[in-house]
């Protein structure tokens, strides 16, 4: 039953949603504009301005971005997988077992939620050097792999899984690892996906720690590489930085465009919360 109020509110909804989207996508639109036009047009939005690929070649020549992108992907993948494994083990122990000092140990886990590795940078640097891991991708990830946030989330999820399922599996002779893999992991998929997203987003954007730890092209992630355009002395070259940003984040857009359905779909399959 469409009343006038309904009709108006629907139209307003559409307009509101679109306005917000346009506002949100403005930086990308500007980046495309600045990257494809000569520098004189950075601030002049003349529709008939000539197009150019110079900015892309210029940006590309300033740093090996393909390698940086690869490094970032490797680093993020490594971190997220390690987090999944380590946090699952710890969370499961807290969710399903009783043992002495359990509360103290859990408080220690929660502490990590609040203490950011960035503040502990000098100490962590010493530790990495002591382990002989300077300038490796592993070193970028190591302080983050045991994540209090992940442990907390997974414990929450594991606790909500009915114990009868464990018992059934145990009767069938399954050991701890098998129970985790066959029972808990499948039922916790939405949490893994949610947590994975949080983690990927954080590490993709991380700057200071990778800057300190990495020295060579083979390990440096994108954020450090892109910072070469953020230099303040010479004035910001918007055309170049736009071209650099576009080239290096295009794979992500495409991945998101293709996989956005999968992301959402996986939340639905398990149907919990």
């Amino acid at each position, binding site marked *: 039953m469409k009343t006038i109020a309904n009709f108006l509110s629907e139209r307003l909804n559409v307009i509101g949603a679109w306005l917000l989207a346009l506002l949100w996508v403005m930086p990308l639109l500007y980046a495309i504009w600045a990257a494809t036009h000569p520098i004189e047009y950075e601030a002049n939005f003349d529709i008939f301005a000539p197009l150019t690929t110079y900015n892309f070649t210029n940006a590309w*020549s*300033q740093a090996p971005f393909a390698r940086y992108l690869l490094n970032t992907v490797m680093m993020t993948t490594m971190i997220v997988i390690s987090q999944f494994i380590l946090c699952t083990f710890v969370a499961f122990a807290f969710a399903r077992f009783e043992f002495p000092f359990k509360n103290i140990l859990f408080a220690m886990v929660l502490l990590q939620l609040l203490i950011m590795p960035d503040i502990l*940078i000098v100490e962590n640097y010493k530790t990495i050097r002591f382990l002989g891991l300077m300038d490796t991708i592993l070193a970028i990830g190591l302080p983050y792999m045991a994540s209090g946030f992940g442990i907390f989330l997974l414990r929450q999820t594991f606790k909500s899984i009915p114990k009868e399922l464990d018992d059934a599996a145990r009767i069938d002779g399954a050991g701890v690892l098998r129970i985790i893999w066959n029972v808990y992991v499948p039922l916790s998929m939405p949490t893994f996906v949610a947590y994975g997203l949080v983690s990927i987003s954080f590490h993709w954007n991380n700057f200071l720690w990778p800057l*300190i730890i990495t020295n060579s092209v083979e390990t440096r992630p994108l954020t450090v590489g892109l910072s070469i*355009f953020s*230099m303040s002395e*010479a*004035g910001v070259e918007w055309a170049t930085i736009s071209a650099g940003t576009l080239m290096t984040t295009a794979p992500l857009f495409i991945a998101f465009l293709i996989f956005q359905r999968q992301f959402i779909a996986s939340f639905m399959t398990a149907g919990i919360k």
Partner: protein
Amino acid sequence: MIKFNFKVVSIFALLFSLNSFSAKSVELEFYFPVAVGGAAASTVEELTNTYMELNPGVTIKPIYAGSYTDATTKAITAAKGGNPPPMAVLIAIDIFKFYDEDLVMPWDDILSAEEKENWVGGFYSAFMKNSQIDGVTYGIPFQRSTPVLYYNKDAFREVGLDPERPPQNWAEQLEYAQKLTKKGSDGNIERYGIRIPTKGFPSWLTSGLIYQNGGQMTNGLGTETFLDTPEVIEAVQYLVDLSEKHKVMRPGTLEWGATPKAFFEGQTAMMWTTTGNLTNVRKNAPFDFGVAMLPAGKSFGAPTGGGNFYIFKGTPADELEATKDFVKWMTAPDQAGVWTMATGYVAPRPDAWETQAMKDYVADFPPALVAKEQLAYADAEFSTYENPKTVKIFNTALENVMSGSISPADAMKQAQIDIDKILKDYR
């Protein structure tokens, strides 16, 4: 749990295989900041490769370290973590910081008397001012600069000014700026006469005004500042009057990074910025432009800026020898010329300007000479112990003056008090 152990072992195996050490030749790392865009990074790499071809026993690894601040952070973190690089190009004015943290070595320790006289003595004395403590050399000038005045010749012609005659002194600078300020049809100003950026690190450009007014900011030993003096206050007053009183400069704090763009877009007819922007302006200005020394107050004056080569404590003797050789080569006339032409920095030795390549370059592009000629009037950049803190106090005071919330006299007085609190421990 056998699966688990295997995973741990294989991870470590992978790690150690990735860390292969070749202990044959001398391997030197050096951190370098990039402050003028990416072309500088590739120039550094080219130069390093050339050196390695000429010196097969040495491997040099240039490590891009971010901005000046990032590079200092990286170097100090590494040094404090027990892993200093043999050498790094770092901002000259942090010299007292590095000295205080006992991280850097004096170059004097590895130089012979002859080298001190001919090599170190061969750099422009203006650049050595931020490179020595009590006569002992800690930094070797590499990417140094001074600010200069860029002006829009087309705009000059438009208002009847002689495009080949830039303003020579403060009075003319103001007069020209007034002529060049233009209002649009809606009553808003569409072009300002001048732009002296004041956001972020206003102290650098303001020190130009201070030197031009005959003032001194520090005692050169890093332990005392003289901000609460008439010469300094007058200089700051001149600056804020440009926007507040005479309205020839955009009010508020002005972004350094947006200044060249404002110039190109015709929103300011003159700008003060580093000579390191020369190549950028040459490439992108859509009009005829000129470069001049900063106009004189009671005299000409300008601060120096930029980065020096530092060597770090804890470096083994053979690496120090190789480092010295490399730095000598990098600052030699031919290489200094290559660096200058690629970036716009000022070649730090007089002999670098005498090579044929540089002579041709300057003949083709006279503005490159301006910064060099200004060196005769140039003086040290603001530098004291705890420099990051003291310079921030100074910068913040200037930002407050420019935003109109406090008078120059009050701001400088307060800044002097705040800095004294920090420096008194060092006297």
